[in-house]
């Protein structure tokens, strides 16, 4: 059963005199444990598609079904709850909370979920160690490099064991070394945690690591290529 099922998804922006069709009848399915890159030129609808999958925006028509539940029919409160418990987000600009330390930034989502302190401590320590950030737990984001900040953001996205992670241009602000390190760490955690990663990217290095590449153009899927089998399908 797919983790995400997208059916006839359209999004039209009517904010200008000429309507902009950002998404134009998208049909896609994502399986558990995928490591997928959505690529395409600027304005092709990558970010809009991620926003629809993450429940951050409402489509004009169509549905986004997450484990048999159509999130496009959810109200604002239910969507907030859905995002908190089922989606991990990684942003281009890292978007860590500057007044919190590395550890507090990662703990924050689990605290919002009212998880017990021991669970929080165990999970946060595990992830920060996995991301090679164990010696920076009490440091605030402004003292970290871009690559380090994005590693913390990945830990934050994974901490609540979401069904899938949406990463919007996660390597756009990173140098090549940091990008390689980050992608290796994400690939490792993708396999260990069996969590679905969906990237929007222009970065060839991300495409090289991806096991599936979806290409969008003018709001339509023009190609969907599975390069390698998912970890789960290999095991099965």
């Amino acid at each position, binding site marked *: 059963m797919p983790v995400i099922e997208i059916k006839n998804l359209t999004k039209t922006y009517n904010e200008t005199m000429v309507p902009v069709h950002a998404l134009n009848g998208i049909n896609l399915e994502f399986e558990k444990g995928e490591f997928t890159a959505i690529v395409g030129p600027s304005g092709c609808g990558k*970010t809009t598609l991620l*926003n629809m999958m*993450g429940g*951050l*925006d409402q489509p004009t028509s169509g549905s986004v079904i997450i484990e048999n539940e159509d999130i496009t029919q959810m109200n*604002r*409160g239910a969507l*907030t*709850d*859905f*995002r*908190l*418990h089922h*989606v991990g*987000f990684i*942003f281009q*600009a890292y*978007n860590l*909370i*500057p*007044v*919190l330390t590395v550890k*507090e930034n990662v*703990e*924050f*989502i689990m*605290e*919002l979920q009212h998880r017990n302190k021991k669970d929080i401590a165990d999970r946060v320590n595990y992830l920060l160690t996995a991301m090679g950030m164990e010696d920076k737990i009490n440091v605030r984001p402004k003292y970290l490099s871009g690559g380090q900040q994005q590693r913390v953001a990945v830990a*934050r996205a994974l901490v609540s064991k979401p069904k899938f992670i949406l990463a919007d241009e996660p390597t756009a602000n990173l140098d090549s070394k940091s990008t390689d390190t980050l992608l290796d760490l994400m690939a490792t955690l993708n396999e260990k945690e069996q969590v679905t990663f969906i990237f929007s990217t222009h970065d060839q290095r991300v495409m090289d690591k991806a096991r599936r590449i979806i290409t969008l153009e003018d709001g339509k899927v023009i190609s969907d290529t599975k390069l390698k089998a998912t970890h789960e399908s290999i095991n099965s």
Partner: protein
Amino acid sequence: MLIQIAWRNVWRNKTRSLVIIIAVALGLWGGIFSDAFMQGMAAQQIYSVIHTETGHIQLNQPGFLLNHDMQMQVKDADRIIAAIKTNSAVEGVSAIIQLPAMASTASGSSGIMVNGIQPSDQEKVSDLSKLLIQGDYFKSDRTNQVVIGQQLADKLKVKLHSRIVLTLQTTTGDIVYGAFKVTGIFRTHDSEFDKQMIFVRNKDIQQLVGFPPDAASIITVLLNNNDDTKKVATTIQKQFSGMQVQSWIQLSPMLQILSGTMIQFTLIFVGIILIALAFGIINTMLMAVMDRTREIGMLLSIGMKPSKVFGMIMLETIFLSLTGAIIGVIVSIASISFFGHYGINLSIIAEGFNAFGYSSIVYPTLGVNFYIMLAIMVIIIAIIAGLFPARRAVRLKPAEAVRGD
């Protein structure tokens, strides 16, 4: 963690936060200190009136104060005084013969009120002996001594040891004259009192006008504690039901009204200051929200409930306001304590102050109740000021806000 984030957010932009914190602190200090100043003036005026003019309670024949009819006498005054003195709340009691008269010198004349007193008793109910600027307070046993106010002395152009002639009506309706020697000149905070009231020994006035020896016009009572006034007045009224017993509040109702009005006036004053500050707080918080659009978008994206984002902004506003308020209150307490001890000397404008019965040295004072009311007002204003920025924060669309749009 929400409280922790909100508190740390206050200090993210130190300069911006400090500007508004200082504004709140200074605004509140100004309001609180003004209030303490006015409360101090009112408290001093009340103290001054009680301790130089009315005492806490006065007992007289009903209607006496309307026309000072000398036939309206409190008979058997010694027995009444002895009975009142048995009350432990009473500090002193004094019988006064109060008669309207004309004071004349070669330079002029003036309508005045003669107060015939027993100096040792009067000292127990009045601070007048401490307010002498020249001479003494009936130290010698000589007859026909008079103690007058500086204002009257200036009007009649008399000095210490000058003689003034008092013209009075006797109990039989005849007019008599008496020459009195000025042995003391006082100055109170009330220039009208200084113009009107003169003090002589009661036996001198008794002889002059034929006033009965065991009678008085007024019996003045001073208490150990102002709070007991109503209770003791009721007790005395029950003991001497035929007499009129009045507290200083009834004798000087304007004083009580003034004191109460000042509290209301200053609360309105502080309220206006706080409302003005609220606009500064709204501006600061709006800037903070706009600066953090991307961050707030991220919080909403990752699943933080809008109510929590709203609460976080509200907490920041309250922390910002309370920090300023606490500093303002600390500075206020320090300055009120200092000036409450040493006083603020307003001698440059003393004449105007004295005309209204105020002292030229003001000792600011403020009750605990005011601080409690102030704390409530600050929190209410902070909540109101936080509503708009907090509402703006939760209305952000996460998908747009997270990109900083």
